[in-house]
């Protein structure tokens, strides 16, 4: 059914392990917390192990060690700089604060620059351009554009807490907060559908892949 497992012995063992763990997790719904807690530890342990393997096999060895060993590291200044930054991060407790702050500052600065730049170039400007009413656009597009701008403005006003304002502004802020709540409600509805499908997938796995009955 979910097709993750084949028909060999190892796949059958994997199916049984997955089925037992699924039942234990579903048992949490009936109040069986101890075994449920154990599965949470198992998941955390497996995830940590997987990330460690990923880091070693797909990042550190092929992208750092191999290039450095290939030509003695000559001409790969960027890797040496990266290695020095990692060493500085690891040794932060014993380094002067100014030196220890350098790698963290670079990481946060780079992350913010990419995220902010992307948001402006990739989202803000194109979305503003797409919202602007243009000649030849249909009246529906114009109305929906105006409505979107109005709702955005009201929701932004909803964040004005503690600022002195008159009655119209107060009403607008209140409307903005209700629109925000409605939006969050809609989003929770989507989330509910996702989680329901996840539960159905697990039920389908138990019935179809494990027990072998189904449509």
């Amino acid at each position: 059914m979910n097709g993750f497992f084949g028909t060999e012995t190892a796949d059958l063992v994997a199916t049984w392990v997955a089925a037992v763990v699924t039942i234990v997790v579903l048992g949490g719904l009936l109040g069986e917390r101890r075994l449920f807690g154990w599965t949470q530890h198992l998941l955390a342990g497996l995830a940590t192990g997987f990330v460690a393997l990923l880091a070693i096999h797909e990042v550190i060895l092929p992208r750092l060690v191999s290039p450095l060993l290939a030509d003695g590291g000559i001409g790969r200044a960027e890797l040496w700089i990266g290695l020095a930054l990692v060493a500085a991060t690891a040794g932060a407790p014993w380094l002067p604060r100014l030196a220890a702050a350098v790698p963290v500052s670079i990481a946060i600065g780079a992350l913010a620059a990419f995220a902010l730049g992307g948001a402006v170039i990739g989202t803000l400007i194109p979305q503003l351009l797409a919202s602007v009413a243009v000649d030849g656009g249909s009246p529906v597009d114009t109305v929906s554009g105006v409505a979107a701008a109005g709702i955005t403005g009201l929701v932004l006003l909803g964040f004005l807490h503690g600022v002195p304002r008159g009655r119209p502004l107060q009403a607008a802020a209140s409307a903005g907060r209700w629109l925000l709540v409605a939006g969050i409600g809609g989003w929770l509805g989507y989330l509910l559908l996702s989680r329901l499908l996840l539960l159905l997938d697990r039920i389908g796995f138990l019935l179809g892949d494990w027990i072998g009955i189904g449509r």
Partner: protein
Amino acid sequence: MTDRRALVARLAPAVLVLLLAAAWLLPETGAVRLASADPSAADGWADALDALPDAPTLLVGFDPDIGTYPEVRATVRVALADLLNRDGRLAFVSLTPEGRALLVSELARLGRGEANAARLLDLGYLPGAEAALVSIARRPSVPSEADGELARRVASEGIDAVDAILVVGGNDLGPRSWVEQVRPRVGEMPILAIAPTVLLPELLPYVGSGQLAALLGTPRDGAAYREAAELGPLERLREAGEPGAAAVLIGLLVAVLVVGQAWGRRLLTQLRETSRDGRDAP
């Protein structure tokens, strides 16, 4: 809470699971359909695939979330089979560990389904989040052990070897990140996306502005596309035993009942308090 109520509250989840299991076993009669009656999203997706050149090469950003992947899994499998059926070449890359784990499983499944391995290229896991996306937009990194015509072409031509991008979203680095980081750097290259419903509010504006060429973002749109897709000899790659529409409907009805019951109880309490205040007033 009385003992009886406590027992009911404790058994309710188990009853729900049993109810859903019974609904899952019901045969599909066609009385309730999961596929959307409005085929515009599925048609838009098919049009975007038809607009690709013959034997297209696609870069597949594979970063779904384990919690929402079951929602899009059947659609993703049909989309990959559809692309392979169109003589497509697929180069996969993951930017999150979660996506990588799911990608490894899906590549193993494609292998078991005897998909043409020469048309698949695993670019592996790329760390660095947004910075990794920028590096992909310049030159996707091909692992040294990768072999074959596709690997050589991507290694020599870089992003120019790619005709379109398919993003399987759900995680932090989903279609929005690809639109923000990659699209401004690769020009008019179409980006197609498959994402769970929770991402719909943030992705629909990109479809409206044309930044996403096509989006399958709801189970109903996915089901409509799956119904219409012709996979030819790769029909075997289609997922068997998808959740039935009856089970989804019953689950949603139960959810609505639970929410309605909570609201009703709150409303009733408020009404009682109001009437009591009215009686107590001098």
